[in-house]
Every structure is written in structure tokens, then in C-alpha cells.
């Protein structure tokens, strides 16, 4: 374990250090402006509020590294949320429900991946279609109305805490560690990088390009379903409209963290910090009573500044 942590820190590279520095700077400004900002409950608040976006962004980062994009994550989350909630309300045991809901996410990811690899279609268009398709299925299945009355047994999973840290934060932390291990310690991780960096070269070098891309979209679907379970546990209800614009927040987190939309580059640690930066901005600006329109402005500026720094530090490639 200590070896793992050691290598985790030794792997924090220049770009990630830059993202972290950005987070610290933003935090310092808020700490100076608001005395509530640096209190323990507020820090936990930020982590809790960032957890869902971070979870989606983990899957998104793998898809982006492999040279794709997944615009359908919000509706996939909505579909697995309403199907999971329906199972819970019908009395299906909690572990079975969670497996089923995660299965829905993986299946949606498989459909996306299959159309992209075997169908030879562009990721942007396929997942744009998925964005409407999965949302429509969720709306049709529920008739547009939320499903209420999730059992307390299920809600206890997401509303509990361990040593003061909310369970969703711990769950996303563990998932991040897993994805980080996959990306940096396994052949699959090298495949993601290779397929995104130069698909032709990867194919010639014997990388299973099709399976690698499929894996990226299936993991993304899985992460969307995990986020859905966390959210419906917290809300105590599943709404077919949940997850609107999640794809954009997740892409923003990955981009702030150093992922290149051209593929071949990206970092799990960077993405996590990116998600926390977005959560911190929202939290700090609300504490300072800054109106929503200006919060949007601040988010836009941060993303563009991150990209400019990226460009300046990474030399000529872009």
C-alpha cells in the first residue's frame, strides 16, 4: 500500500502540479474572502458536491484519452437511475439492484462503443444520438414523472459517512484509484494512450484497437451509472430529467486536468483536481453571494486560462 502511495506521488508530474497550484490559488482567494470557506464542514461540502462530476469525469477522461468523446453520460445516468429506482421500489434486493443499474450503464456504453468501432461512426455523432435516445427511454419508461420512495436501506449507503467523510466521496476516491491503476499500471492503460495518440500506429503495433475503444465507452457508461446510484440515494428519488449537461461539466474537468481532446493525453489526478476546482468555484462564489451568471463567467475564464497555460507549457503541439 505504501509503495502504491509513493509511486502515486512520484507520478504527479508538472502539468498536474500546475492544476493543483491553480486549485490552491483559487482556494486562497476564497479563504481570504469568506471565513466559512476553510471550515471542515465546508471542505466536505465541496468534496461531496464534486463527487458526482468527478465520477463521470473519470470515465470521460479514458474516452478522451482514447481519442473519443461521450456526450451521452447524463441520459445514461438518468436511464440507469429510473430503472434502478423502479427495481428498488418493486422490492428487488439492494445489491442486485445496484448490479442491475450498473449493468444498464455498461450496456449503454457497449452500444455507443459498438456503433463507433464496428459501425465506423464518429464518436461525437453516435453519443449525440445517444444523448437523445437514452433520455427518451428514461422519459418514456417513467411517463415523465419522478420515482419516489426509495428504501432507507439503499439511501443509507450514500448518506452514510466514514470518519466524517461521506460515503460517495470515499466511493469515488476508490474508483479513481482503480482507474488510475488501470491507466498507469496495466497494458490496457497503454492501449488507451496508444489508440488515442495514433490509431494507425497502434493497430500496426498489434494493439486491439476495437476492444480498447469498447472498454473506454463501457467504463464511461459504468461511471455514469455509479454517479446515478449516488445521486438517487442522496435525493431519495429518481427523475428522468436528471443529468442534464453533465457531459459538459465532465469534459471541462478533464480538460482543466490536462486531457487533450485530440486524444493520447490526459491524467486521472488532473481530472480529479479539475472536478474539485469546478466544485470549489461554485461553492466559493455562492459563499461570497456572487450571482449565477457571474459564476458561469468564472467557470468559462478558468477553462480558457487552463488551456492557455497548457499550450504555453506543452510547447508547440496543440
Amino acid at each position: 500500500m505504501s509503495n502504491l502511495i509513493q509511486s502515486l506521488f512520484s507520478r504527479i508530474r508538472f502539468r498536474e502540479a500546475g492544476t493543483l497550484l491553480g486549485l490552491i490559488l483559487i482556494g486562497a482567494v476564497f479563504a481570504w474572502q469568506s471565513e466559512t470557506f476553510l471550515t471542515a464542514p465546508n471542505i466536505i461540502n465541496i468534496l461531496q458536491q464534486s463527487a458526482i462530476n468527478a465520477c463521470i469525469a473519470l470515465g470521460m477522461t479514458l474516452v478522451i484519452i482514447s481519442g473519443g468523446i461521450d456526450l451521452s453520460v447524463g441520459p445514461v445516468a438518468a436511464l440507469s437511475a429510473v430503472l434502478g429506482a423502479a427495481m428498488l421500489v418493486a422490492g428487488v434486493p439492494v445489491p442486485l439492484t445496484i448490479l442491475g443499474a450498473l449493468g444498464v450503464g455498461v450496456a449503454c456504453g457497449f452500444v455507443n462503443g459498438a456503433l463507433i468501432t464496428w459501425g465506423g461512426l464518429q464518436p461525437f455523432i453516435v453519443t449525440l444520438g445517444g444523448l437523445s435516445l437514452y433520455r427518451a427511454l428514461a422519459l418514456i419508461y417513467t411517463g415523465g414523472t419522478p420515482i419516489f420512495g426509495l428504501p432507507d436501506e439503499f439511501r443509507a449507503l450514500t448518506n452514510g459517512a466514514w470518519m466524517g467523510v461521506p460515503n460517495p466521496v470515499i466511493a469515488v476516491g476508490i474508483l479513481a484509484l482503480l482507474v488510475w491503476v488501470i491507466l498507469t499500471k496495466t497494458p490496457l492503460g497503454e492501449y488507451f494512450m496508444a489508440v488515442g495518440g495514433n490509431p494507425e500506429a497502434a493497430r500496426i503495433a498489434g494493439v486491439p484497437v476495437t476492444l480498447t475503444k469498447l472498454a473506454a465507452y463501457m467504463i464511461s457508461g459504468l461511471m455514469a451509472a455509479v454517479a446515478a446510484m449516488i445521486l438517487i440515494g442522496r435525493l431519495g428519488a429518481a427523475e428522468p430529467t436528471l443529468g442534464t449537461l453533465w457531459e459538459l461539466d465532465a469534459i471541462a474537468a478533464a480538460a482543466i486536468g490536462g486531457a487533450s481532446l485530440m486524444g493520447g493525453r490526459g491524467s486521472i489526478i488532473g481530472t480529479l483536481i479539475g472536478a474539485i476546482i469546478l466544485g470549489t468555484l461554485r461553492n466559493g462564489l455562492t459563499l461570497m453571494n456572487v450571482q449565477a451568471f457571474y459564476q458561469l463567467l468564472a467557470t468559462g475564464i478558468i477553462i480558457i486560462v487552463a488551456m492557455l497555460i497548457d499550450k504555453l507549457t506543452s510547447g508547440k503541439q496543440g
Partner: protein
Amino acid sequence: MQHFLKGALAASVFALSLGMSQAQDLAPLNSDSEPDRMDWSELEAKFGPLPAPPAGTKVGGVSKTLTNEYWRSLGEGYQNVATALGIEFVYQAAQSEGDQLGQLSIAENLISQGFNALLFSPQSDANLIPAVEAATAAGIPVLNVNDAVIPSATHYVGNVQKGNGVNVANWFIANRPDGGKVAVIEGQPGVYAAGQRTAGFTETINAPGNFEVVASVPANWSREEAFNAAATILQQHPDLIGFYANNDGMALGVVEAVKAAGKQDQVAVFGTDGVSDAYAAVRAGDLTGTVDSFPVLTGEIAMEVALRLMAGQDLPRVVATPQALITKDNVETYATTDMAALRAALMAQ
């Protein structure tokens, strides 16, 4: 759901719920039919003048989005009372109407800042539930103000949504005694307000037996979709005598379709909400009428209810806010920005 309240079932439901948390002891709220309710106009008569808030009182408001005039006006009403009584008031809203998690974050961040009461207008029935639970645990009173209804809300201030449709149906019954064909342009399917407004209109207008609702289609609050739907309906039923739209934006779309078909004199068009565009259209004679739910006044009443609750008054679970049918005959009476005059006019109604 309200049927649970009556009969022998209530006892077993109560027994089952004993083990659950406090919020769940209440039956899921249906703001239109909840029996524990009162009208805003009775507040002063039943509970006396507004108690003065203690110095240093802080109240927070979270609403859907400031791109919609309705929520800006509601905030203006909150602020009016806050300014008059010298209390600190913070008003925040999400970036857009779809931003459910963003609104939840805002609400949670306000709870951590030590407010004495919170006024929530949630995006959906469920998205603010964790914030309500956290506020309740911290002993902060929470008011659900209008539109989406949080099932576990202990206090709700807002419009009787069904009444909007009933008001319009009654106009047709009084002014078109011969009856005829009418159509409804609905809001987004599954949204509580849209369903209740449509139900109120349809049930009331079907009662006399000489009206027929020939079409009732959703246009998702969109002016453009309403225009298209109305044009199609007019083609199919050239003898139509009226439209009821679930909001003003859609009603103004319908007005354009009616004009394009050259049927202004035959077809009466009604909207809901009373936005400023609708008032202008009523004055111009384009829109026959709208049901105004007076957002600024609603904001004032909600803030007053919050202050009464903080003073320990035992108010009913639902306080219904005013609404009135605005037509060319009374448009100037209700167009006033003087809230005291508006209150007097509504009290005299």
C-alpha cells in the same frame, strides 16, 4: 395520495412511519389538495400583525433561474419585505432551469452559513431533498415556495395551480353561454403545475356539457411549439372558439397562429402567469386574458410567512397565494406596481 389521509388506512400508515425520520411522518404533500391550508388573505385576521423580526435575522432564498422574469419578480417581493424590516437577505438561483445539481449545491452552501430561514423554489420535486433534510436537521425552517412540490415539505407557500385553469374555464362558461369547441396547449408533460392547470380547466369546462375539449397537446412551454400546435388544431377545427395555454409564452405563440388564420374575432386565447408581455398583449387586444399569480406579492407573502414561522406561529402546512383572471376590463387595476393597492384590490375581489 390524499386518499391515504382518510379511512382506516391512515392508522396503519402512521404506525409504519413511526420508525422513520421526522420529515417522513407527514403525508407526501399535494399543494393543491392538502387539507391543512389557508388563504393568504386570512393571515392577518387569524394570526395578527406581522411580528417584528429580532435584530440580525438572516433569510436566504434559492430559486430556479434569473433568466425567467417570474423568479426575478419573486426575489423582488422577498427583498421588499427584507428592506422594509431591515433584515439581511440573500437571493441565489441556478444557471438555468435544467441545472438541478447546481441548485442543490447553492442550497447546501447557504445552509452552512447560518441563515434563520430558507425559501426554496426547487427545479424539480426531488432535487433539493438533501438540502431540506440538512436544514431540518440543523433546525432551520424551510419554505417550499411555488411550482415544484417537495413531497416532504413541512411548509408550502404558492399558487393553487388547479385554480388557474378553473378561472379560465369559468370565463368561457360565463361569456360563451352557447358552448363550443376549445383546445388546451399544455406545458411539459409530467410537470405538476402543467398537469393541474390542464385538469382544472378540463374538469370545469366539461361540467356544463355544451363545451368540447377537442385537443389537449403538450408544447413544452415553448412559444414556437405552441404556434405550430395551434396552427394545426385550427386547421382541423375551423369552428374552434378558444384556447387555454398553461403559460403566457405559449399563449403568445397561440395568438400569432390565431392571427395568421385570421380568426381573432372568433377565438379567445388565455394564458397563465401574468408576465409583462402578456399584459401588453391583453391591453392591445391580442390576448383575451391571463391568470396572474402576482410573483412580487407572492414573494412578499412567502417572506412574511417565513417571519411568522420564525416567531413560532403555528401556521397551516399550505398558504395559498393570490391569483386573478386579467382581461381588458380589469387590466389597469392589476397592472399597478404599488403592492399595497394590489393587496387591497385582491382583498376586495
